[in-house]
């Protein structure tokens, strides 16, 4: 397959590790070479988190500036923060529901109105998929399934060499039975946002 570099960004606690674990499982079960680089430790405490995912025989588990083929954002400010690592034709898949940092709640910084920047984002890149991930997840049963909604949206773009069934199988394998139904619904809802 073609080489593909996916950068997933979000905030500690949004479940980015589960997002990448499911994607990894899909790749593993379909025999597609995959490597990832994860952030652990101190940075997870409410900080910016990212997972670099490379497919198709790329060895480097880290993605440089200008190398990102698909930028996946679980949070809109984090999507914007990661843009310096994109290039002009990077595909953007992002939730638009904000997570307000503690520092803003403490009155030490401001979280800007992102309506206009997200509009600009759609003009600046050829393929941009924006969706209210948390709202969609809530409708599917739990706001915590935002990560799986976003995974569904990524799958729905058709840019990955995996079928919808591959993803559903991987979710069934990894997600605990108690949360499975909500997550399957969340995936379907995310998928239908981007699939056309």
């Amino acid at each position, binding site marked *: 397959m073609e080489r593909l570099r996916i950068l997933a960004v979000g905030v500690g606690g949004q479940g980015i590790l589960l997002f990448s674990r499911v994607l990894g499982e899909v790749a593993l079960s379909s025999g597609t070479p995959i490597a990832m680089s994860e952030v652990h430790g101190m940075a997870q405490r409410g900080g910016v988190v990212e997972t670099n995912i490379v497919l198709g025989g790329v060895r*480097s588990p*880290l993605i440089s500036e200008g190398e990102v083929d698909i930028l996946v954002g679980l949070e809109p400010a984090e999507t914007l923060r990661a843009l310096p690592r994109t290039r002009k034709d990077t595909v953007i898949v992002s939730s638009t529901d904000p997570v307000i940092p*503690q520092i803003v709640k403490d009155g030490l910084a401001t979280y*800007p109105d992102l309506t206009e920047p997200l509009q600009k984002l759609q003009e600046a890149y050829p393929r941009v998929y924006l969706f209210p991930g948390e709202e969609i997840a809530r409708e599917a049963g739990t706001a915590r399934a935002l990560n799986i909604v976003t995974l569904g949206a990524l799958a729905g773009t058709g840019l990955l060499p995996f079928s919808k069934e591959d993803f559903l199988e991987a979710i069934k394998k990894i997600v605990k039975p108690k949360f499975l139904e909500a997550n399957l619904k969340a995936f379907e809802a995310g998928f239908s946002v981007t699939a056309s």
Partner: protein
Amino acid sequence: MHPILSAKPQEKLLLLGNEAIVRGALEGGLRIGAAYPGTPSSEIGNLLFQLQRELPGLYFEFSTNEKVAMEVAAAAAASGLRSLTCMKHVGLNVAADALMTLAYIGVKGGMVVVTADDPSCHSSQNEQDNRYYARLSGLPMLEPANPQEAREMTAYAFELSERLELPVLLRTTTRVSHARAVVEMGELASYEEALKGKFEKDPKRWVPVPAIARVRHQVLLEKMREATVLADGSQWNRTYGKGSKGIIVSGVAVNYVLDAVEELGLEDEVAVLALGFTHPYPAGLLADFLREKEAVLVVEELEPYLEEAARVVAQERGLKVPIFGKATGHFSRALEFTPGLVKEAIARAFGLSYTPPEAPDLSWVPELPPRPPTLCPGCPHRETYRVVKEVLEELGELSRTIFPTDIGCYTLGLLPPIQMADYLICMGSSVGSAGGFSKATDQRIVSFIGDSTFFHAGLSPLASAVYNRHRFTLVIMDNETTAMTGHQPVPSQELRPPELEDRPRIDIEAVVKALGVPKVVTINPYKKEEAKAAIRPLLEADELSVIIAKAPCILYRARVAKK
């Protein structure tokens, strides 16, 4: 059964580098493991700790610090059992005293010392390059580039260790330990029954008084000569591609170089010597590689260890080949590499044109709020800081108080609005430095340390403080767990998972009192007014005192409640 145990040979799993090390260790017949947690090494210990419940033939412990863990593993290896200890890079500083002389007395059973370095300081106070510990101690070192190699090299490291009768360093970095990739399994050793070793007395070997140490140093030097031959012929030192130009590389940068050579279409112009057995460096292999080349670039994160080795080899052989690297400004000694940075350096070194992808215009992106890591909402450390701060404010002492701090979640007390972290060196430095400040200044000193860090490196400086009449207040923030690295156990914890319920408990207040600290109080930081009244006399006084702020980490409490 845990998937890492149930996976059959040739089966493929998606594993973290650290998980691959555990699988490799269990394929290599590890019997005794000991560690103190530290990012980016922590998952190794966590997994071994968990797996021992399923493996009667495996013992693993969280020791109180890296030096103790190294000594536990060393004794196991001296008794003929295969052992492992793992730590973050700065953890090896703590264990270095043991390591340096362990190199002299050696081992019988294979012993692996995993050091997980952290270029770019993702979770650390420095970015030291622990490959120099291999040089300093004279021990063999392996450097995996990815999780697959991490598994294979760990299993091999036990054999190498037994052959040389020396512990072997396995050096990773964050981008190897926390890379996740497809790993093909080998054969697991049998763990059906506990195996006991036997220590054979031999004081001329195991007790390095000066007369014996001098002999053992010669033995070590001889083994290094033998190891150099092994490094030259090692399967972990491989050449890729061909050409008149060359790249010497190790660690995670092997991936960056191989991708770059492919993407720049240089497979027929640039040969790559990828090194995994890097100490002692393979002098013969390096000489052969350098001899055939017009120019060579050395690609390695942090210190110019291989670069300087290549220069030594070239000088010894009278080779005139230009060697590019840190000395020539192609790379920095600071921070981790990225694939793009390596690609640009390769192009520059070999005079190729390379244009990085054009950056989009981002002038329209608004200023975004930072997300520094913060203490969790509801974290007891927040309450402790608040209680101490309010009392100092009421006493008019806040502005003249120095706050030495320590390593743990509570180091985040550095950030606004708390801002009660003024000085930090390493594990335990909150206690030792507080004593120094008390002799050097007239300022008030209130220092902070966690429960796990207190057992790690806080006990002996506190004894010193009592004896030398240091004047400070030490706040021990007892949240009943080693929180930041993933909730590993602490000897003082009352709140514990069922599997640890039968362990003895060491009471921190009793320990502090037994050391002779004149004033000790224990508070519940959530009971603010009570806590303030209790600590006020200590924060007014000019003598040594200890406040134990006891309240479990909220994440840990939730985790234990689930079990």
